[in-house]
């Protein structure tokens, strides 16, 4: 047998050397670094998540503050509207008129209560102006009609009649007819009611 044949027959004996135990750990690190840079991606991902979380937190705090401000504003207006003093109630109505752009159901309910029950005509008139900010709100429109049915103060009656005419509220015609036919109705109220009736009929 020649030398090459002998070596090839015992090839395995030439491969007896073993790599060191630490080499596998080093290789795994190298493999991760070169072909699986997942840690970097994870770090980037985590950074992205933490930045996003910070933004969400900032916005949450902003909206929470905004919301809590709104809550405190609502409470303040409600407390004014329920005050014993007509001046305070009037201040509450103006505060709502000035500072609230959107509907607030609690405040609208309080205003509707004033519309029906308040003893002060000025407060009622200011309240009607404040309610007219929400002309599409059916609750407001309905309550204006029912308030007109019960109202006996001429100034307030005229304010409601003009408001219903402005709102083109056809459901008010029955109440307007009753006011016109009522002998106790002030003439100026009658003439306003007649004018409104004619406008609604057009």
């Amino acid at each position, binding site marked *: *047998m*020649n*030398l*090459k*044949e*002998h*070596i*090839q027959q*015992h*090839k395995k*004996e*030439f*491969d*007896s*050397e*073993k*790599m*060191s135990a630490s*080499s*596998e750990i*080093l*290789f*795994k690190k*190298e*493999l*991760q670094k*070169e*072909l*699986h840079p997942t840690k970097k991606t994870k770090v980037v991902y985590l950074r992205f998540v933490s930045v996003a979380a910070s933004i969400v937190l900032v916005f949450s705090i902003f909206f929470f503050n905004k919301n809590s401000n709104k809550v405190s504003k609502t409470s303040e207006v409600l407390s004014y509207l329920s005050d014993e003093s007509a001046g305070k109630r009037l201040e509450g109505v103006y505060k709502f008129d000035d500072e609230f752009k959107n509907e607030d159901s609690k405040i609208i309910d309080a205003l509707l209560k004033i519309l029906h029950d308040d003893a002060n005509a000025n407060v009622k008139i200011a309240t009607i102006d404040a309610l007219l900010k929400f002309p599409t709100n059916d609750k407001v429109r309905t309550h204006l009609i029912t308030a007109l049915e019960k109202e006996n103060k001429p100034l307030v009656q005229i304010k409601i009649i003009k408001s219903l005419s402005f709102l083109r509220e056809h459901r008010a015609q029955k109440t307007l007819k009753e006011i016109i036919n009522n002998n106790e109705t002030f003439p100026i109220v009658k003439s306003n009611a007649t004018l409104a009736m004619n406008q609604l009929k057009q």
Partner: protein
Amino acid sequence: MNQKDIIQQCKQNKYTAQIEVYKLYKNLLYNSCYRILKNREDAEDLVQDAFIKGFQKIHQVNEEMNLGGWLRRIAINLCFDKIRKEKHVFSIENVQEIEAETVELEFDNAEELSIDFIKECIDKLKEKHRVIVVLYLIEEYNHREISEILQLNESTVRNQYARGKNQLITMLQKHQKNEFKRTHTTA
């Protein structure tokens, strides 16, 4: 997992498949590198580089190929890149001296020799002869492949191999004579 699945998963850059390939072939590559470089740390470094390079080029492998053999070739190429860069063992000036054709000796009763002794004698050869002898006798490269890897003429490689092999055979024959003398003197 069979080789077809392993290659497929390596092509998908699956970490577990790559580690499995590493565990399967690391010592095969290491032995080849160590035989050439004769330095354990350098051999280990190049084995790792070879696997990384192999996984980066895994798309070149088809499922029928011998993956271990392919990786071993990458490792051996890296060994010679290193040798060329650092030692200039195979520069033209260094091999010109052996351009004259050398007659190749043969050893007929090789089976009588121990593998350990053959390894010992190969290690004693000059580096420029040893690496060619290793490539031809152990790694089973032919002269043309060796000439490509060393960037030398094929005839130069043949002569270098012949000279290296002759030195090896001389050492082996000398040892055999001594063994013969020792046995007969004792008897």
